[in-house]
Structure formats: structure tokens, C-alpha cells
């Protein structure tokens, strides 16, 4: 019998409001027992993970990842991307369809699924395209994709410009209860833009992307969701304006959900100035400025936006934290800023990045963990994920809230070493990730006893 006992950890499950020290027993790939004082201990010897001083919670769910396969295997593969996910504490990743070919057919979905079954370290849920070839012209055959197993639709990176097409997609998607994830960007406002439009872009002489490029599209999508009754999910919200619009839409009861990335929650456009830049009035640029690892779309915004995003997360205006893991090669990034690819390799730093908010007292741990577990599961309508309820999937993440580590991209499991956090000291470390009852990642410091003998369950 496949079994695993996790002992002595601080068990936190936002889906049930549990926060207690106890043991967790997983059997046959599902949560079997959770309890204090060895209530959960099985009578027979089984493998044991010691989690004293650590947090044990449902495995994280990432609504937004780029695994790059098929087509861009030099950037990432399903094997390396899911390993990176496991190291980041994620047991489920939803992968975006901007691959080559794009995920707009049953065959493409099946390719992802078979690769994930064979090589995946964690669960992969494919997202299909909204339009054929992500060209923004004709809807995909949603029925075929739904039957093949996509969990949502998105033309990520290529926002659907044609409002009429978006309207029909939202209407038609109701037939299959699929939700639509939109990357909100008015490309006529953002065209040629390289970073947030503001004093930093002015200083660097780079073309800016105004916040309004996102806000206007969010407003449109909300209006269309209201019109059609379709479910729209706003990807990687980055502006205070979007937050206001989503808040009002939710107040009106419109079916809209939203996600935010760890980087938009913790970094501003000043990060493009590179390390060594002193945040003083009119200080000189360091040699490391024009940091292409801080080039991401939507761009890192301002302190005001950042504060609004944190507030929105606390209030529930933003439902989930998603990584928008976007791995790229060195060649894609070691070049002129204008030519560099957009994106941050985020799976392996996500947890420690957002824990900064907990350590600073800006958000409580239970709320934050709900944004990585229970809330994304709700959006996916997967009641067996993101929870430690008995019978749920045996997906568990164990982390040390206070462990400090220095980000070393060369040690990433992801092929994408593109992170603006290289060399940064982060606090909070994933110690083990259990997917479907099996250990998919375990830190060297995490002890595993293969068979515990001195169990006294009847004491």
C-alpha cells in the first residue's frame, strides 16, 4: 500500500480554516487522516517525513504557467517545468497554449497530457486557445477541446482584440462551462512598449506601456462578461485601475475572477534600473541597468499599483496568485532591452517572494495560502484539489516559513534562468512537495524515514 505520514508539522488548510500542529497521513494517493497527537498515525510502519517547525498545507495550484512544449523545448519542457513546479511547492500547473503548434486541437491537448503522464513531476492541466492558432479570427472548436480535457481557454499573450469575437467566445463557452482567461492589453496603446510608462521609462529612454492599456481591456471584458454571463478570468492583474474595475464588477455580481503574480506583488518598475541603483532623487544609473530579467508583460508597475494589488488580494478582489512562469534562454535575455523577450522564470521563487508580504505583516499566512490552494481550485471547480479534506488528492506542500536562501538561477530545475531575483536573499523555503501521495521534491535537509517502527498509535 502506498502510504506517507507527515509528522509534527503546522498543518494549515484554508479550505477548512485549519491551523494546528499535527500529523497528516496519505494513503493510496489521497488524504486519509489529519489529526493531533498521533490521531493520524497508522498502525503499520510506513514512510515518515518529519515536519517539525514547518508548515504543511495543500499543494499549490498555478493557474498560469508556460511550459513551452511543444515548440520551444530550448526554453522549457514539460519535464523540466513540472520539476521546477515541484521545487516551488506546486502540485498542479495550468499550462498556457502559446506553444508551437498552439493548443487548439484535440491532438495538441493529448500530446500535453501524454507528455505530462510520462515525464511530469506534478499534475498538468492544459489550457486551450480561444481562437484557432491564437490568431484572434475564429473560435476554436470548444467542444472538442473540452472533451479532450482543457480546463480553460486563453489566447495568452495575444489578447483578443475583436470585441465581437470575445463576446461570442464568452457566450459559446458557457455550453461547456469553460472559463476564459484574458491577457488584458490594448495593443494599440502598448505597441512598442518595453516597460511601465512612468518616470523610469522616461529616464531610461524606453517606450512605456501605460496602465490604461490594461485598464481599458479589463473594463471591456467585464462588460462582456456581464452581457454574456460567461466566466472571465483576468490574468496577471498589474494596475490599481484594474483592481478598481474588478472590485466594482464583483460588487455587481458579475462572473469575474482575477489572479496576480508574485512579481507584480513585490517589485516595481524601478527594478529595471538594476542592482546598485540607489532610490534617491536623480541618482546615476548603475552599469547593470536595463535589466532584461525585469522585462515582463504586463510590466512591473509602481508602488501605488503594488499597494493596490496587495490590498485587493487581502480583500478577495483578486482571487489567486499565479506565477506566469515564463522561462527563456540566455540568448533571449542577454541582449539589448528592446530586443529581449518578456517574462520571468517564476515557479521556483514564487513562494518565497510572496512570503515577504507575510513577513512584513501585510497579509496573514492563512489568506495568502488560500490564494495558492483553495481559491485557484475554486476557479477550476476542482473540489478535490487545494484542500486537505479526507479523500482529496494527496497533494501536499511542506515549507519552512523562516528558512533563508539566496536565489541561484543556475541551481533552478527550470531551463529558464531568467529572474530579476538572482543573488537576492529570500525568506521561506519549500522543503517537500507531495503529488498524489508521492514525493516529487524533497529538500536535502528534509529527513525521510522509510519505515517507522516505534509507532505507538494506541497510547
Amino acid at each position: 500500500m502506498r502510504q506517507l505520514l507527515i509528522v509534527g508539522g503546522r498543518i494549515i488548510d484554508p479550505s477548512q480554516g485549519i491551523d494546528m500542529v499535527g500529523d497528516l497521513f496519505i494513503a493510496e494517493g489521497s488524504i486519509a487522516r489529519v489529526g493531533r497527537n498521533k490521531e493520524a498515525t497508522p498502525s503499520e510502519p510506513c514512510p515518515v517525513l518529519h515536519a517539525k517547525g514547518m508548515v504543511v498545507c495543500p499543494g499549490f495550484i498555478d493557474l498560469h504557467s508556460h511550459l513551452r512544449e511543444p515548440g520551444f523545448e530550448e526554453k522549457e519542457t514539460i519535464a523540466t517545468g513540472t520539476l521546477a513546479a515541484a521545487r516551488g511547492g506546486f502540485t498542479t500547473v495550468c499550462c498556457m497554449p502559446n506553444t508551437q503548434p498552439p493548443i487548439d486541437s484535440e491532438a495538441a491537448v493529448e500530446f500535453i497530457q501524454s507528455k505530462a503522464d510520462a515525464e511530469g513531476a506534478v499534475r498538468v492541466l492544459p489550457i486551450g486557445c480561444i481562437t484557432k492558432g491564437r490568431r484572434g479570427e475564429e473560435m476554436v472548436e470548444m467542444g472538442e477541446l473540452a472533451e479532450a480535457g482543457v480546463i480553460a481557454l486563453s489566447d495568452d499573450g495575444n489578447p483578443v482584440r475583436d470585441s465581437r469575437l470575445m463576446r461570442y467566445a464568452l457566450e459559446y463557452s458557457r455550453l461547456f462551462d469553460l472559463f476564459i482567461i484574458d491577457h488584458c492589453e490594448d495593443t494599440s496603446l502598448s505597441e512598442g512598449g518595453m516597460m511601465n510608462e512612468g518616470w523610469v521609462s522616461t529616464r531610461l529612454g524606453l517606450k512605456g506601456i501605460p496602465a490604461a492599456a490594461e485598464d481599458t481591456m479589463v473594463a471591456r471584458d467585464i462588460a462582456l462578461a456581464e452581457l454574456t454571463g460567461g466566466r472571465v478570468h483576468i490574468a496577471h492583474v498589474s494596475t490599481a485601475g484594474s483592481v478598481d474595475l474588478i472590485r466594482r464588477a464583483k460588487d455587481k455580481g458579475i462572473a469575474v475572477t482575477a489572479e496576480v503574480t508574485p512579481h507584480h506583488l513585490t517589485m516595481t518598475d524601478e527594478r529595471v534600473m538594476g542592482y546598485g541603483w540607489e532610490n534617491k532623487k536623480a541618482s546615476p544609473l548603475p552599469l547593470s541597468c536595463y535589466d532584461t530579467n525585469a522585462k515582463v508583460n504586463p510590466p512591473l508597475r509602481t508602488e501605488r499599483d503594488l499597494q493596490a494589488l496587495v490590498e485587493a488580494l487581502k480583500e478577495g478582489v483578486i482571487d489567486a496568485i499565479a506565477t506566469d512562469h515564463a522561462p527563456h534562454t540566455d540568448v533571449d535575455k542577454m541582449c539589448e532591452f528592446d530586443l529581449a523577450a518578456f517574462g520571468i522564470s517564476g515557479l521556483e521563487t514564487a513562494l518565497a517572494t510572496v512570503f515577504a508580504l507575510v513577513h512584513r505583516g501585510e497579509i496573514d499566512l492563512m489568506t495568502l495560502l488560500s490564494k495558492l490552494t483553495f481559491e485557484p481550485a475554486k476557479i477550476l471547480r476542482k473540489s478535490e484539489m487545494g484542500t486537505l479534506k479526507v479523500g482529496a488528492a494527496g497533494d501536499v506542500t511542506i515549507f519552512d516559513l523562516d528558512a533563508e536562501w539566496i536565489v541561484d538561477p543556475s541551481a533552478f530545475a527550470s531551463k529558464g534562468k531568467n529572474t530579476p531575483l538572482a543573488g537576492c536573499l529570500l525568506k521561506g523555503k519549500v522543503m517537500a512537495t507531495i503529488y498524489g501521495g508521492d514525493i516529487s521534491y524533497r529538500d536535502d535537509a528534509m529527513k525521510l524515514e522509510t519505515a517507522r517502527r516505534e509507532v505507538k498509535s494506541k497510547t
Partner: protein
Amino acid sequence: MRTTKQRETEPSLEVATWRRRHILDLDDFAREEIELVLETTDAMKEVLSREIKKVPTLRGKTLVTMFYEPSTRTRVSFEQAAKSLSADIINLSASGSSVEKGESLIDTARTLQALGADAIVMRHYHAGAPYLIAQHIEVNVINGGDGCHAHPTQGLLDLYTIREHLGTVEGVRMVIIGDITHSRVARSNIWGLSKMGAQVVLSAPPTLLPVGLDASAFPPIAVEQNLDRALEGADVIMPLRLQLERQKQGLLPSIREYIQRYQLDAKRLAKAKPGALVLHPGPMNEGVEITPEVAQGAQSVIEEQVTNGVAVRMALLYLLMGGAQ
């Protein structure tokens, strides 16, 4: 006065304070450093006034110019400066080189270093490109203009020209007119002039003014959208080149309307202080941002800017490449 012997050899200057490796923008220049450059330029102008405009200072040194964007004055100016100091010069342009074969900028710069370049001057249409190569090679990097970001040698030659005519830059009111958003010259001038105690006034329609000028991007700058008001009390006026495609991009309703409101003509010039200097970074669109009458008028120092450019670049090459010896 210098002795004949000195004149035949080298300008004698104190370069002990110069520890700079690259010239990427003026934002990291101290005021004393700028003063040293301007004083060194005086000596170089003297060299250029000789019958034989050449000193052996940089003999055996190699300067490579990498110009990814078309340029007449900056490239030729550097070439002339290098030759006057007896340096060898190699001109590389993007077309006809391995750049066309897709070689990365870093690899091209490393190759030039391996081939023996002592300094590289780079002009690039992407902002930040000189910072990128400066991180990866050991040789001196001089920014010859990067995208909309900076053009430090232009900023220095403008400072020199102003100082030459007005005696000082301190307290000078300089009005820069036009397409500030896309102007690397404006950005570097803001740094240089502010550091030397001048007041910079920007005058442009809102679509040509970048956002965030009032925050911590730059030293304090005044913005006066009405050109007539901006020109009151001006000591120096610099209209920027207006690229005609700005109209196509929708930033302006028409060139005609721009001319009506922002062209520097004799009537507007009269609103500035008597004898105010007219500068232009070139190339000019005569009849657009400036009338030919003003461009060639008595107050124009546009040609002197070009001449001074050679001396300033000689000073910079001397300080960068010769100063260490």
C-alpha cells in the same frame, strides 16, 4: 603661454583625478569632472588651431567606432578626434559586418576587444546598448548616442560651446524646444546643464513631453508649453529636430501647426535675451523647427558646436585612453 617645445608634444594636464572607465551618460559625472573635460577641451582646441593639427599622444592605441545607426557628425567627429591624437581608428557599421549574420551585440563587442580595440564608441538605436557591452568587456566604452536615452558627448560639446560664449554655464537659462520624448540630446543636456548650475526649460506640446519629468527621474526642470513665455529671459535656445514621422504616429495634427507654435524664427528669437545663443544638435530640418534665417543668423553657434565636438571628443579620448599612463 606654452613654450614651443610643449606645443609640439602634448598638452600638459592634470589627469590624476580622472578614474572613469566609460562615458555612458552625464548622470554620473561630478561637476569637477565636467570642468576637467572642458579645460582639457581648451587645450585640444589649441592643438586644432595649429598648422599641423596632430599630436602623438595616443599613438599605438586603437579606437573602434560601432555605428548601428546612421550618423555623419558624431562618427566623423570621433574619427577626426582620434586621428588628431594619432590613434588608429577602425569604423564598423552594422551592414557588411557579422551583425548582419545575426551576431549578438555582446559577441561583437568581445570580438572587437579580442582584436585589440582599446576603446569603443557606440551609436545604437536601442537605449541601454552601451551599458550592455560595458558590462561584458574591459575596454573603454563611449556612448555615441543610444536610442532615446543619452548622448553624453553631445551634452559636453553643448556645455563647452555655451561656456565659450557666455563665460560660464552657471545661472544660464536654456530653453530646449520640441520632441523631448524621443530626444537623447535633451536628456543628456538636462544632466550636464543641471550639474553645472544652469536652469533647463522644456517647451513642447504635451504629446512630445515624456511622463514623469516632475518626479525623481531628473534634476529639477521647468516645463513651459507656451514657447513665447518659455523664451523670456533665455540665454540659450536649442530647438530639437522634429522627425516628420511624428505626425504619422499621431503625435501632431500637422507639421504646419507645429511650425506655427514651436518653430524658432526671428520674431520668437527676439523674445529671448539680446544675443541669446542658438544651438542645434543636428541634423536640422530647416523650415520646420528652425528657420534658415535663424539657423544661419548672427546668434547661431550651430557650426561652432560641430567644430567644438572634435575638441571635446579629443579631450575625452585623451582622458580615457591616455590618462592612465
